[in-house]
């Protein structure tokens, strides 16, 4: 019978203590001192109470606002996800910003800044918005750094191969002719955010612009009261979570419905995770696979042992350029370049190896079929 009393006393110890005190202080003490039996009863009742609390908590957990929106823009799909008090407002604002940026960066829209730049000449340079100018400047900088392996004027070659329209292998002569148009040195930056191109040069900031847009989107969304933001610009990810880590999967280039590894983003860090590969945008002709990343030297798809190159960093614009560069370099040269430039990256090589920068140790988990080798 005693256990029952103990139960009661524990469960209502506060009232008991108060009530009893006036009558007899001795009776208060058993409540507070815990004997073996009491201890057990106390523990059991605590567990029960805790269970109940858990039930209540999981049942009536306050819902944090969460908003996800997918839009087709920037020649790809864009998914914006935010969590927090102002999530809906934040996502709505970000969506309208993307549409604005689309107008600026698209080479296909006549009124875009890029179209104006492509129609410019030495005698009639165009004034660009600071955002566009900054991206162009970064693109040219990395063109110089990579001796033209990255080239923002490669677009005519892409068009020749029919990416986006009618993919086919063009004639060698056509390629030679088109290549004459390709040279980043034909893009001239002049002071006051102005620039012009030599005749026939076509600038397409395509990928590089996505990084810049993601950065600006992030800034806007984080200006609201939000706790988590995930931006997915056609597979280019930029993410941040105030509390708690985020798991960012990286698609397996050999089996795109699986992952090759998962990168864990620490809490309160904003990072861009950008992958370049030719496992999605490619076509096959006569049994040969042709990827969409072109070598400005040959005007043909790059030959590389890398299936996909992922760059993790704070600057999405640079990340976008560098992932393309690393992909094109091939694993050996890519590793040297990554070490020299201090790039955090994950290179999926066609023998099932993931070359991972040693600075990312402990943050990357290989998935089935892939083994990690650290370098640098």
């Amino acid at each position: 019978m005693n256990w029952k009393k103990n139960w009661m006393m524990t469960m209502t110890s506060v009232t008991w203590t108060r009530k009893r005190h006036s009558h007899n202080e001795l009776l208060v003490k058993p409540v507070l001192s815990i004997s073996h039996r009491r201890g057990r009863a106390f523990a059991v009742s605590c567990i029960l109470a805790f269970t109940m609390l858990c039930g209540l908590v999981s049942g009536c957990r306050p819902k944090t606002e969460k908003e996800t929106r997918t839009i087709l823009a920037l020649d790809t799909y864009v998914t914006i996800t935010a969590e927090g008090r102002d999530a809906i407002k934040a996502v709505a604002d970000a969506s309208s910003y993307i549409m604005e940026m689309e107008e600026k960066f698209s080479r296909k829209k006549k009124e875009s800044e890029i179209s104006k730049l492509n129609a410019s000449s030495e005698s009639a340079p165009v004034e660009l918005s600071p955002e566009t100018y900054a991206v162009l400047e970064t693109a040219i900088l990395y063109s110089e750094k990579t001796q033209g392996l990255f080239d923002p004027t490669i677009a005519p070659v892409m068009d020749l191969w029919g990416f986006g329209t009618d993919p086919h292998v063009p004639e060698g002569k056509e390629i030679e002719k088109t290549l004459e148009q390709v040279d980043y040195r034909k893009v001239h930056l002049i002071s006051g955010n102005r620039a012009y191109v030599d005749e026939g040069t076509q600038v397409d900031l395509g990928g590089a612009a996505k990084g810049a847009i993601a950065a600006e989107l992030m800034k806007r969304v984080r200006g609201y009261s939000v706790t988590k933001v995930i931006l997915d610009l056609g597979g280019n990810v930029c993410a941040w979570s105030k509390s708690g880590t985020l798991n960012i999967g990286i698609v397996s280039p050999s089996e795109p419905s699986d992952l090759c590894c998962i990168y864990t983003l620490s809490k309160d860090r904003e990072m861009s995770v950008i992958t370049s590969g030719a496992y999605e945008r490619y076509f096959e002709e006569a049994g040969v696979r042709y990827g969409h990343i072109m070598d400005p030297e040959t005007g043909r798809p790059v030959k590389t042992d890398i299936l996909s190159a992922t760059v993790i960093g704070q600057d999405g614009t640079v990340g976008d350029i560098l992932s393309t560069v690393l992909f094109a370099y091939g694993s050996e040269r890519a590793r040297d370049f990554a070490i020299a430039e201090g790039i955090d990256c994950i290179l999926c090589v066609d023998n099932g190896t993931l070359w991972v920068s040693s600075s990312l140790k402990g943050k990357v988990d290989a998935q089935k079929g892939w083994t990690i080798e650290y370098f640098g």
Partner: protein
Amino acid sequence: MRRKDGQSNTSASAGARGGKTRPDRDLPARRFRFLPGDAVVIGAVAVVCVILLLVTWIYGKSVENRGRVVRITQDGNVILERNMADFSEPTEYRITSDSGEMVILLSSDKVYVKDSSCPDKICMHVGELKKSGDGAVCLPNRVVVQIVSSGTEEDQEVDVVAK
């Protein structure tokens, strides 16, 4: 009985304090009056716990059973949103757009773009969509095929996929 309880209590925790200051017969009257109430409280807590656990468990199950949902949008409008479990028989779903046609295969465990009129076939190259968060996009047809979360996001392996 009263006496016995009183003794066991004092001996268990209050030691030898009991007897002298207060006669034994005074103790039980107040101390054990609540014995029946104890049982009620314990019972009530247990019942509430069990009910809460059952409710959360059943709720969790129902969410799980709702499972993965395939959502297809065209020009931003949802044209199909169905539980994947509905497709015990693989079903072909045809979409026509200004620029051509798409065939999407829907089944209970995977969804994929089987054929598309678009030039680049990126939507087909992404392969099978199985997990919540997987998606295939066809820009020329302006179609997005997605597997959307069933609500139990804790089960999601990753928050987002880079590709």
